[in-house]
């Protein structure tokens, strides 16, 4: 259909209406969760049949939050998740960017084949390797301050190290690095920089957008970890939030407290995303890679 300038206002209105409806669909569960976390169970269940479910009305209090903290070590779970997620994100940015630097800028035999293999790992679902990986980590050695240990189960490292390097993050970095002007790299080489100096003096300072994207994607993956910590961590002291959620459900079906727990564990994600939002969107726009 030909573009009719007279219809411009109408088209804009329809477009915004559709966008608002889509936004509402996405935001409803969040609104429901946050409102419900302030309501007692009886009211929460009664409200589900009306729009009141999405409004902070009736008997509003913080009781569910106090209840959640009394019932389970929510703070510890959040701390565990933040620790594991933070460490994995930082290590991942370092290791994956170094790997990608090598793939993008250095010339070595088998480079392209290896990169293809790394990218191919993206199609392997984690569930298929979970059990072999469990068997592997249960027998791996570790040298700590108190000497040599065998087996990594019930630790932070078992939740961190297997997740540090991954195909998607490496691929994101490779794509971004290849988009940097090659002459900048060549100029720094001619000026006397070794590859390590090129990495940290030239490439990394220019990689803000991809660092943000990779960090956010990794953060979401790590914060939402469920299956892996479920099978490698049995002790409460190392348990992350999502496994904690399952545990919380088993203890209790007080929906208000469940909603309070969910609201609490959503907060770090929102903070993290809001901090890096601008860089995240810029990066998706510039790399042409969907997040």
């Amino acid at each position, binding site marked *: 259909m030909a573009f009719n300038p007279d219809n411009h206002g109408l088209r804009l209105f329809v477009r915004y209406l559709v966008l608002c409806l889509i936004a509402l669909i996405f935001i409803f569960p969040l609104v429901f969760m946050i409102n419900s976390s302030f309501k007692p169970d009886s009211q929460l269940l009664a409200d589900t049949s009306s729009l009141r479910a999405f409004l902070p009305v009736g008997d509003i209090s913080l009781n569910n939050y106090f209840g959640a903290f009394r019932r389970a070590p929510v703070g510890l779970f959040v701390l565990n998740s933040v620790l594991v997620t933070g460490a994995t994100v930082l290590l991942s940015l370092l290791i994956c960017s170094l790997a990608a630097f090598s793939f993008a800028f250095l010339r070595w035999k088998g480079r392209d084949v290896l990169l293809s293999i790394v990218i191919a790992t993206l199609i392997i679902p984690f569930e298929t390797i979970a059990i072999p990986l469990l068997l592997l980590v249960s027998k791996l050695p570790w040298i700590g301050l108190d000497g040599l240990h065998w087996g990594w189960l019930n630790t932070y490292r078992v939740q961190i190290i297997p997740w540090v390097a991954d195909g998607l993050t490496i691929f994101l970095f490779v794509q971004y690095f290849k988009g940097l*002007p090659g*002459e*900048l790299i*060549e*100029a*720094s*080489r*001619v*000026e*006397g*920089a*070794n590859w390590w*100096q090129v990495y940290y*003096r*030239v490439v990394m*300072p*220019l990689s803000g957008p991809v660092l943000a994207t990779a960090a956010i994607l990794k953060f979401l993956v790590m914060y939402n970890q469920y299956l892996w910590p479920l099978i490698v961590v049995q002790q409460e002291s190392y348990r992350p939030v999502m496994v904690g959620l399952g545990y919380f459900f088993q203890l209790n079906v007080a929906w208000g407290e469940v909603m309070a727990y969910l609201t609490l564990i959503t907060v770090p994600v929102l903070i993290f995303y809001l901090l890096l939002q601008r860089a995240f969107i810029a990066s998706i726009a510039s790399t042409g890679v969907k997040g």
Partner: protein
Amino acid sequence: MAEVSLKGVKKSFGRVEIIKGVDIHINDGEFVVFVGPSGCGKSTLLRMIAGLEDITEGTLEIGGRVVNQLQPKQRGVAMVFQNYAIFPHMTVRENIAFGLTIAGASRQEKQQKVAEAARILQMEHLLDRRPSQLSGGQRQRVAIGRAITRKPAVFLFDEPLSNLDAALRMDMRMEIGRLRRQLGTTMIYVTHDQVEAMTLADRIVVLKDGQVMQIGAPMELYHEPANRFVAGFLGAPSMNFLNVDVLDLDGEAAMIGNQSLEPIRVATRRRAFRKDGKAILGIRPQHLRAVQSGQGLLHGVVAHAERLGSETVVDLTLRDDRELIAAFNEDKVFEPGDALELTFDTALAHLFPDELQTH
């Protein structure tokens, strides 16, 4: 400062040979320009000297030392790139000092050398700006500043003025000429712009398809081109080439002619021709003169004329329907369809064998 010597240098990408055996000797302090059409390998050759491309075969010496296997930083070269290649996250000062920072120079040394470079390039007031706040010409000055602070033995320029507009290009060209006189360092400069080549170079290396067509001083190449390619490449408008018949030969000259050209004698300059064979006559547009009817060697009809004020460029159609360009260094009026007779000094004309020659 250093001599640069390329001996039998070749470069292949896979099976494709880009540089097909190049021998060039560049003297200490000399300004040499590599010119040629795009794809001739001039930039590749420069990048091989910089150490950014491997040398497939042959040897490269800088300052009497074979550097084939050395890293760029060990070769004592500095390079200025077409797209400036200055670091967007650093200030002008940090950009200029980059090489010194990498080399671990003291703060005092950096300050002193940056100040010196800024003075030479007249950009003291720009030192605290970021590249995004600079114009194209200023960015290229920063790139040059970065190159001169390390006092390299050889400067390499890879089409440094291509991204600048015409007026700025002229300014920068003069600035590079001035810089060259000031520093006296060996410089190798790649361009496809013959004006840059003619004005800056001590010697020009004309390249085509990865081979050297001719090496020589600008005027030597202009007046004594070794072959048809060099003759056609240098000079604007390009040299005219006319297919002619060799009517007679006598030692150092040939009698030539065709249906548009009256028989004349042109020096063969030691090139081999065959009697009753074919040849190509090269005449620069500036060497043609309009004469009165009956006195001309060439007869044509004006197809199009451009008045540039200082000169008039006329596009003529000859009797055999071939095109000929004449440039007269005065403002003259020509109308399409005007009959025109032209003559030229045969001493300034060049006769080439009919097939394209290399040397």
